[in-house]
């Protein structure tokens, strides 16, 4: 409305002060998604200094680079039908990289909020405590799966394209695709969950990172020693389930039919058992996380 004064002139002053917000208000789902994206960005070092970005990006590069090199070699030596890196070997490699990745990002996801007591602010928002936990789990899962599933899918894809009859290969080897997606997902979730569980117990990122590294190393070492020590094959089979790298390794060998009982020292379980065990651990991790965050204090 134009403000015309007595002498017929027009002029207005606008209110720059606090304004009420009458626009759209979104619900819980938006808040959850906002938390997931925010957590992912901060874990990857976006909007932070370059030092925070270095490690995650280098690790990504390592994975992508490896896939490129493998494809390159296989393309170059196509006639010889070389497989530069079998899927089981690839997954062993991925496991280590993913481990380092999780050790970097899982503490970023949880430790800061706990230490700086930002949890108090989050819980006063339009989400529940369970929403917070699930968001963090989702954010970690998305990041870790991007590293362990996406590149390997491309690896599979390029291998089919390199075949003599690509279209035929795509359908014939779809089973392999299923296998790599399964293994990649389990690696992502198993390591991610483990990393988050450890991070949920401390507010200090560096300690969480250290414990993740040391924890896994100690676990592997301990289980290996036990496997050497026991003589019963069944015992060895069960113990192998407790060592994540063995679990993944043996699962992938079994799925691709290259499992060698002599080399591993025991017969192992059918693949389904490994999958069940992995899912069991993941579920346990989620339960622990929920226990850490959800009950009121």
């Amino acid at each position: 409305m134009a403000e015309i004064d007595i002498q017929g002139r027009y002029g207005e002053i606008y209110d720059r002060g606090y304004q009420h917000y009458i626009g759209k208000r979104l619900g819980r789902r938006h808040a959850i998604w906002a938390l997931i994206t925010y957590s992912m960005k901060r874990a990857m070092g976006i909007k932070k200094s370059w030092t925070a970005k270095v490690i995650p990006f280098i690790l990504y590069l390592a994975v992508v680079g490896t896939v490129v090199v493998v494809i390159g070699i296989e393309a170059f030596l196509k006639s010889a039908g070389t497989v530069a890196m079998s899927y089981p070997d690839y997954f062993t490699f991925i496991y280590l990289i993913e481990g380092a990745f999780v050790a970097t990002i899982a503490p970023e996801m949880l430790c800061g909020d706990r230490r700086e007591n930002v949890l108090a602010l989050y819980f006063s928002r339009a989400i529940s405590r369970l929403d917070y936990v699930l968001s963090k789990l989702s954010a970690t899962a998305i990041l870790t799966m991007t590293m362990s599933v996406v590149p390997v899918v491309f690896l599979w894809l390029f291998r089919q394209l390199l075949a003599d009859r690509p279209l035929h290969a795509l359908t014939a080897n779809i089973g392999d695709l299923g296998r790599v997606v399964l293994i990649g997902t389990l690696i992502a979730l198993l390591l991610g969950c483990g990393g988050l569980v450890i991070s949920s117990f401390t507010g200090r990122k560096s300690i969480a990172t250290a414990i993740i590294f040391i924890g896994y190393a100690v676990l592997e070492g301990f289980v290996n020693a036990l496997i050497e020590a026991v003589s019963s094959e069944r015992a060895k089979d069960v113990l192998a389930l407790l060592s994540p790298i063995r679990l993944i390794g043996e699962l992938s060998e079994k799925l691709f039919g290259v499992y060698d009982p002599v080399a591993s020292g025991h017969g192992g379980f059918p693949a389904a058992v490994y999958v069940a065990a992995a899912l069991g651990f993941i579920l346990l991790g989620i339960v622990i996380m929920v226990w850490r965050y959800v009950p009121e204090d």
Partner: protein
Amino acid sequence: MVHAQYAPARAGELHPALTPVEGHETGPIISVTNLTKRFGRHTALSNLTFDVPRACIGLLGANGAGKTTLVRALLGLTNPTSGEATVLGLNTRTNGIEIRKRVGYMPESDCLPPGATAADFVAHMGEMSGLPAQAARQRAADVLYQVGLREERYRLIKGFSTGMKQRVKLAQSLVHDPALVFLDEPTAGMDPQGRDDMLDLIQRMYRMLGIAVVVSSHILEDIERVCDHVVIIDEGRLVIDQPLTGMGTPQGDLLVRIDGNPDDFIAQMAARGITVRRPSDDDLQTSDELIVASNAPEVYDAVRDVTAELGVGLRSLRMKGRSLEDLYLGNVGGGNG
């Protein structure tokens, strides 16, 4: 690009989000009935029943009296052991998330991430309360400006002083334009200028913007300055629930300060049949205010006339009404939190 949609705030006008919720046309913004909360054997809140009017409310109580538990219950963060509470017409047990969409909270403790910028973090908090991303970003920048931060709002929180951090905490409680905010010790750690600014902001929030405020603070002068109504809790029980303004219940005494020797003044007043005495240690007040026993309005005139006749300066004159401190101490037990 979607801009945050604005409605200018007008003094005295009701906050848009305070307009009727589920048939609650007018009435209290917080309503508590027989609210009890037990943690194991410890009873934090015991049968609280009160209504909070649309105002700026002071929440007082000794350390450990249950204030924090009450606020958490009202935010829907903890369920009552028995009894009910409604905030803005919504039940805290069933509608916690809806409540938190409309309510802001400024905690007492440190709670800001040092590695984020103020604008970024407050925008994120806005999104977490239901604002779309663009709107959150705009409002965050606006609200940070309103609370007094200029270019600093784009810098990392790491370098902020206590005063600046308190302002950021206030901003994040306001970013989603709540209808009600809970402020826990809002002036903690701030220097006198900062405290003044913060108290002004709080007053503005209610008087000019129509946002209901609940201030929890140990500093009674702050509560006296900004609040209209006071609720006092002691050991989980409600002890006081009354407006602040009606508090000057005349205790019948006047406090007078004059320039010069009080003896003449005391004598002249005595000649008119009015007793005046000097303060003793028990009267916890500054040493130069004389206490005039008063039982009739004519005593005011006597004070005026005696000082006029004596030609001395009349520096201050006030009724010794009950202060908030008297009210508090008179009703709160020796609870040592």
